[in-house]
């Protein structure tokens, strides 16, 4: 059986958990994932295993989630483990995974799953930077720089082959609509009420001014979203 596989792309603190949880509701199988987390009321929807696996690959490439390397090489051993992981889902019709690091590792997954589909999410750089400051103690500027790294990569992956990208905003009605559009594009159940999305999932802060480079990328992403 040829499975349909969807990778959720997006930066930390950008709504990737909300998107993963919502797509799970729409029929996407995520496997054994985290459903409870101090930073996300409904869990990060990440596989702890995959998170560590990805982090190890970044470490092998002299990086980390907080300092992503520019080019990531998958070692032979990591490719073997990746294939073991894929094998585990071979009886699932539609499965997927979410870990913000994936955006830097997408090529390695694509190599093993040529029909791999992506879906992306982004959030205003200022809000992400504030969230990272709260969770990880990063300075605002550090958060913005990291936002640029992740989202620049997201656009790079998008340019290789287009896929739906949405913005994470604090308006549940807008999010509902966008999630339905995304689910529809991915041929998942779309006529549902995405109750993973609740007001308390969004800890919106005041938007602060950010550097030009981040705003340019943000506007590019908004442009991509408008074509959904």
């Amino acid at each position, binding site marked *: 059986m040829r499975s349909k596989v969807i990778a959720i792309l997006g930066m930390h603190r950008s709504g990737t958990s909300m998107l993963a949880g919502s797509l799970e509701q729409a029929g996407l199988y995520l496997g054994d994932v985290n459903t409870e987390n101090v930073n996300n009321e409904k869990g990060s929807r990440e596989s*702890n*295993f995959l998170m*560590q*696996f990805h982090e190890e690959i970044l470490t092998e490439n002299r990086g980390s989630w907080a300092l992503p390397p520019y080019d990531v090489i998958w070692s*032979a*051993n990591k490719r*073997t*483990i990746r*294939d*073991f*992981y894929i*094998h*585990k889902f071979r009886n699932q019709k539609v499965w997927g995974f979410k870990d913000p690091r994936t955006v830097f590792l997408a090529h390695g997954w694509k190599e093993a799953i040529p029909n791999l589909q992506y879906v992306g999410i982004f959030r205003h750089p200022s809000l992400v930077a504030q969230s990272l400051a709260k969770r990880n103690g990063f300075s605002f500027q550090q958060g913005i720089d990291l936002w640029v790294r992740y989202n620049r990569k997201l656009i790079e992956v998008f340019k290789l082959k287009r896929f739906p990208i949405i913005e994470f905003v604090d308006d549940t009605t807008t999010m509902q609509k966008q999630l339905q559009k995304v689910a529809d594009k991915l041929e998942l159940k779309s006529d549902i009420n995405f109750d993973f999305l609740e007001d308390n999932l969004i800890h919106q802060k005041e938007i602060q001014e950010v550097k030009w480079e981040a705003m340019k990328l943000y506007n590019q992403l908004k442009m991509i979203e408008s074509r959904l």
Partner: protein
Amino acid sequence: MKNGGLNLLKKSLESANVYFGKDEGTRESEFLKEFSNQILADNGGSWHSPPYKLKLNLYQRQLRDLFISSFDDKECWGFKNDNTILIMNLWQAGLSNATPIGIFRHPNQLVTIYKSKYNFPVKLTYKLWVYYNRKMLSMYEEKPFPIIELENKRSRYNRAVVNAFKELGLENQPKNIQLPRGSRAQLERREMTKDVARLYRRLRQIKVKVITEE
């Protein structure tokens, strides 16, 4: 143990249709090498300085289970790694129905090999030989399983393998294997230390018997 005949035994098992992975399990074997080395290192040891106590972290347990589940569509599969005997209890926790098969060779052959390959002094080789083979013996004493001696005579090895596979309940017969040059290492004429000699005698008592046809 390393250079103890494991590759040969794996070849015999493969010839009896035991699956070790694609391309004779090259990828799986590389994975096991890195996986077991990492466990030994994380516990402060290595293959030649085995740690006494071993623990797997959550990620390593998940890796082990992922490896096991990669064979879940195979009826009869196996795995081989030089360090398996050191971490067997960690494997058994995830593989309760595994049937072991063991192999050992004369300690003085190992002395010759380890001296030329790793420049190990005799004392260290004996120590390692005892450590690894005592582990195998205590596993056997808990629940017997076929153990083969790697002897220099091809016919004796092949006949032992046939008997061992019968004991394992394998449906297919192994093909006769040509012993590679490395497995015919010179037997140093050296008096073994008492503990080595005692353990060697004991292993010979329990090994799969070869009934001479001549």
